[in-house]
């Protein structure tokens, strides 16, 4: 075995709060794959949504503080599961390529940022650095019979010149991972549509409309569950599913899992380490049904 893949790891605020199961499953999966994640010491908020609406330099400084910490660790790559954190880290790097912008940013920091760190999503390193082929060899419990809709959210791949990963209109990274895990990945047409994002606080009607459309589309393509990569998307679809149902007069019972949770299941990691119990819509029924379908298909296959 060649040298282990090692990265600086930036969990982000939601990773320790609302999307605890994303952080848990990410760590468990990386451990199982032999990817070493070294937490960035004393990391702080990336700036999230509010900062860049106020001041680009201030917003960049919040992200740059964390990038500087990574530089101090002696690492050149930092990974984060959260696409929103990723956007802020990458946008800061992108803007700091301009020397005068970097100077103004560094003026706000205790220790200057050299802008020598690349931020990537966990999704990106699994696809690009670890490799789908290698992942498929690690699967011990294939997700046979499980019909999934891979939902990337609107910012994982956008804007393309900043994120520089996958196709910004029809990304395939998660589809490829889930196929490698043995799942039946449905062609999901709304994979990069907005879920309503933080309008969940201010304008629930918008989230009900946009997220409702996502759930409808996932049901339309025959998916058992939506697989997400963004804490905010996951929360809108999962936690607010009852609100969406009542606003749209629908009756979805659609589990919304993180792709890392499904990876964990396929890699044979115990459920409790993947935080499945933290989901609002329980995936148990769907997972059992899928396993049943897989058994039946296998029996039919051997019988024929």
């Amino acid at each position, binding site marked *: 075995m060649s040298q282990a893949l090692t990265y600086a790891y930036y969990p982000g605020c939601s990773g320790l709060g609302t999307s605890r199961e994303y952080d848990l499953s990410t760590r468990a999966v990386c451990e199982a794959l032999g990817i070493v994640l070294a937490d960035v010491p004393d990391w702080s908020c990336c700036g999230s949504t509010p900062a860049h609406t106020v001041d680009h330099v201030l917003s960049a400084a919040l992200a740059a503080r964390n990038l500087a910490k990574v530089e101090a660790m002696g690492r050149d790559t930092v990974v984060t599961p959260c696409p929103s954190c990723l956007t802020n880290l990458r946008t800061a790097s992108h803007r700091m390529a301009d020397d005068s912008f970097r100077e103004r940013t560094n003026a706000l920091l205790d220790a200057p940022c050299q802008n020598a760190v690349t931020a990537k999503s966990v999704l990106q390193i699994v696809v690009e650095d670890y490799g789908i082929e290698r992942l498929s060899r690690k699967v011990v419990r294939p997700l046979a019979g499980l019909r999934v809709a891979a939902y990337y959210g609107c910012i994982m791949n956008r804007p393309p010149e900043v994120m520089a990963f996958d196709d*910004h209109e*029809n990304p395939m990274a998660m589809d490829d991972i889930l196929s490698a895990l043995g799942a039946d990945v449905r*062609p999901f047409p*709304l994979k990069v549509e907005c879920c309503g994002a933080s309008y969940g606080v201010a304008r629930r009607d918008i989230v009900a409309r946009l997220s409702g459309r996502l759930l409808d589309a996932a049901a*339309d393509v025959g998916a058992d569950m939506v697989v997400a990569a963004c804490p905010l998307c996951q929360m809108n679809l999962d936690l607010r599913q009852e609100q969406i149902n009542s606003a749209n007069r629908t009756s979805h019972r659609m589990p919304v899992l993180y792709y890392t949770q499904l990876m964990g299941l396929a890699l044979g990691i115990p459920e409790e380490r993947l935080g499945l119990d933290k989901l609002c819509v329980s995936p148990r029924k769907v997972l059992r049904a899928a396993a049943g379908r897989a058994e039946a298909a296998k029996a039919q296959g051997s019988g024929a």
Partner: protein
Amino acid sequence: MRIGVFVCHCGSNIEGTVDTTSVAAMAKGYPDVAYATDVMYSCSEPGQEAIVKAVREKGLDGVVVASCSPRMHETTFRRAVERAGLNRYMLEMANIREHVSWIGKNREANTNKAAELVLLAVEKLRRNKALFPKSFDITRRVLVIGGGVAGIQAALDCADGGLDVVLVEKTSTIGGKMAKLDKTFPTVDCSSCILGPKMVDVAQHEKIALHACAEIESVSGYVGNFEVAIRKKATYVDWSLCTGCGLCMEKCPSKKSHDAFNEGVGPTTAINIPFPQAIPKKAVIDAKSCRQFLTGKCGVCAKVCPSGAIRYEMADEVITEKVGAIVAATGFDLFDHTRYGEYGGGRYPDVITSLQYERLLSASGPTGGHVRRPSDGREPKTVVFVQCVGSRDKSVDRPYCSGFCCMYTAKQAILTRDHIPDSQSYVFYMDIRAPGKLYDEFTRRAMEEYGARYVRGRVSMIYPKGDRLLVRGADTLMGEQVEVEADLVVLAVGAQAAVGSSELAEKLRISYDKYGFFMESHPKLRPVETNTAGVYLAGACQGPKDIPSSVGQGSAAASKVLGLFAKQKLESDPQISQVDQRRCVGCGKCALTCPFGAVKMVDVRGEPKAEVVETVCQGCGICVVTCPQGAVQLDHFTDNQILAEVNALCQS
């Protein structure tokens, strides 16, 4: 030597930022300058006459004109000094417009720089020699590359003018994109009915030699005497025997081959004739899908062919043709719509391109002219047209307008209502560009008489909903988002340069723009000429064009060829390299570096020496700088002349 200097005002172009009077005054002090003056417009008739008069009255031996770029008016002034009785190479130009007045605003600095440029020209002119062009014979044959409507028109016009024409077409039939169209705008007349007779004329014209399934391998030579190697690709059918009866197509068991003529809307057979009116009407085997080639077991076409024309062992053949002029009419390709992921590029069968839709509308198309959805064969009732797919969009590197999409979309909306009277068309557009004759009236008819609903705004996304497609976009006039449920979506794809156009341009030694379209010599005044003498352009290879413009350009290119060949002999440019064979050591470096193959090595009393082939030399000067001995000199740009200029600049 007596030199005259003429400093041009060019109206306010030069005079605005250069004090031409004092430039002329300074020039009076330069060596050998016998006369200097400033003129309002030196290129005008009185301006030229002033030069002629001064040469005669002051007894001048050479003239410096300080004005614009020599690209613009060198020929003009050469003619003027010739009228005055001087050799045309006793003229020098100092470019004080593009190199001075247009780029700086400081009048004093500009005046000084202009005066320096005039000094350089004077120093060079003092060492000029009279040069005399040689005349040479020309081959009165023309090569037309590309058998689309522009190439067909150029070929027919040249042939009708009495020239022998070699027409090279890369596919197995001429007709190009126009042959695939059902109807044409704005007259809605049948495309193949107006093109078909022209195609037959090409086939029957005794002066046109047609090479289909052929490509240009290489081009050498120069205006009047090009030698072109043409690769005739293996068709696996002996065309001298094939009668085009079509029996092979009937019996061919590989019926699922890609049908390039029908844009892949339906399948075809591995051996096929693209369409009933094909010229030449000969069969071609597609080796990539033929069972005989893939498995070695079939041979059905060979068995059934009544004339025994099948040749599985056929190989490519390269032939050479001598021609005096070349018309490039290689047309365009369509933008690859799959680059728009949000439109479901290639993923949803009922999202098709405009040219695919054209084949669905055509009576000779795969559905016999009945519009059917590719997915389930159902007749679509709601058809959405999306314009500007791959044009006017910087994000896909196609910032230019393709020009004809507004019109063909209007035509297709009209035809849709004709074919399916209870259908409804929607057209998402950015703005309507219909500047041709009867064009705007035509698009209005689509809206007003045929009820097509025009929505101004781009489509953001297309995705399947049930068995229909949801088209989501904006109506920017209403300021609203709109959604249309469609049965069929037709993407009006823009035009881009044909595949391989840049390679062909390099073979022809013509320039091309950053998108691969061939560059004309002057966008306004020399629209069908290139900067390479004897090579002309016609049709969409120069930029997106509709049928009327392509035909117009085809005729224009033909008239240029006929004009060129109207001369008995052509004159060669005497600004070429000369080898001083006493200094030449025969190292051969010049022969190796010459991009035109104009230097050959000869044997002079047992010693190898370089020699320049005068008619091939283009005067680029690469051999001059390569020669370690200084044995090669470029006439009109000798080392002495260039050094004199440098000295003048350093000492001033």
